[in-house]
């Protein structure tokens, strides 16, 4: 029965060296016993197709062998949820910003766009795609290796089994604003308003012995920033008094952040610095440095846009969460009248 020998050889290939002979002898005996019984029932030798059907029923050799192997996993069930959680963080905190920055650079940075589009759009997208895959592969690979090592350590030391219920974090209500955070925001915004209003109005400022002059557009930025800071101070004050988010206040925060982001992005592109003067820098060098600063400010524009989008998304998410009834913890602290 050549077919049986071939089948057993294929099973044997996947078995551990020390047990090969023993397992194959037993499987061979079982197979021959089954065939012999079938043959005595039929009163004749089995045809090749009938033997083939028996082997097919027993399953693919690698699967048959696999049942004799110890159950192994690169990352086991204890660490797997943490592993997928970390992968999600890597995706959200690294790969998504990467894509956003690339889109920002292609949209707003003409030098970068010209360099990328030296040949064609197709090549530019292909090159970014392969670069993204390289980055993603490296990130996912690194996380996987770290968790595979942790799995081995955990299997030996069982470090995850030692835990203290009292060290678990307090029940978190995403709609509640911690008073410490509201107080901090209030202080920072109030200080900003005072310092800004008292020192930054003039388009010419003296810092130490450096005389800095900015563009005539400066008053627009000055008043815009002052208004936003005042609005944020007021919001932080209300948040301190009534420490939970409402849809109205979350929408207000979204508007103020959007206005601040727009103002800041505009500032980066506005060539706001017109010059500076100091004793030990020549006027020509001063012009050079001014141009360089404006150029680098303009170059950071795509990154600033990326950061602004992330902030806007966080604000939109907060509003969406407020509009969705929170599931789960029935004993969570009450919001005390949150709408």
């Amino acid at each position: 029965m050549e077919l049986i020998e071939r089948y057993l050889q294929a099973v044997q290939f996947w078995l551990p060296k020390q047990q090969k002979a023993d397992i194959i002898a037993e499987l061979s005996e079982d197979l021959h016993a089954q065939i012999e019984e079938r043959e005595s029932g039929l009163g004749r030798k089995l045809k090749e197709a009938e033997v083939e059907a028996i082997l097919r029923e027993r399953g693919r050799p690698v699967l048959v062998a696999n049942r004799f192997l110890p159950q192994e996993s690169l990352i086991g069930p204890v660490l797997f949820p943490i592993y997928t959680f970390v992968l999600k963080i890597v995706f959200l905190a690294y790969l998504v910003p990467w894509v956003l920055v690339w889109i920002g650079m292609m949209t707003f940075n003409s030098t970068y766009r010209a360099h990328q589009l030296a040949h064609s759009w197709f090549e530019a997208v292909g090159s970014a795609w392969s670069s993204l895959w390289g980055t993603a592969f490296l990130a996912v690979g690194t996380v996987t290796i770290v968790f595979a090592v942790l799995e081995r350590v955990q299997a030996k030391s069982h470090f995850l089994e030692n835990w203290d219920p009292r060290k678990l974090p307090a029940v978190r209500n995403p709609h509640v604003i911690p008073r410490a955070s509201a107080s901090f925001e209030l202080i920072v915004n109030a200080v900003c308003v005072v310092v800004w209003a008292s020192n930054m109005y003039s388009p010419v400022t003296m810092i130490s012995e450096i005389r800095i002059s900015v563009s005539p557009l400066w008053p627009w930025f000055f008043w815009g920033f002052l208004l936003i800071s005042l609005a944020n101070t007021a919001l932080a004050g209300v948040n301190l008094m009534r420490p939970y988010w409402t849809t109205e206040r979350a929408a207000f925060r979204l508007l103020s952040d959007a206005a601040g982001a727009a103002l800041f992005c505009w500032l980066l592109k506005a060539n706001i610095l017109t010059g500076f003067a100091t004793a030990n820098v020549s006027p020509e060098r001063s012009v050079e440095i001014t141009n360089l600063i404006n150029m680098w400010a303009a170059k950071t524009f795509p990154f600033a846009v990326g950061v602004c989008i992330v902030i806007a998304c966080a604000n939109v998410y907060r509003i969406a969460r407020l509009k969705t009834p929170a599931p789960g913890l029935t004993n969570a602290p009450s919001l005390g009248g949150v709408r």
Partner: protein
Amino acid sequence: MIHTMLHRVEFENLRGELRRGCLVLAVLAALRDEECGYTLRKALAEQGLAIDEGTLYPLLRRLENQGLLASEWREQDKRKKRFYRLTGEGTQILEQLLGEWRDIDSSINAILAKQGARSWN
């Protein structure tokens, strides 16, 4: 149609889970008398507990490694066969497992009886 198929798959998965533990008990119980793999498989199938060879042989190997079974290669009907039997430790474990089995059985029956009484009232 799809619902029926999903229901069937779900049932098969749960049935597999339920049978897994029972098969260990059945194999240990059947091996109070010495058997070789193939005759054991046939005996279990005749009692309504069909088990495929891909499940049986790795299980026998695991139980032997745990010291609950002992095996021996012997010639019978002009063929070398491996015979398994319960060890002393295996006998003790089997008695404990049968105790557990009876407890589970009576608990399940008690739950079903209670629910039956509630639905009749």
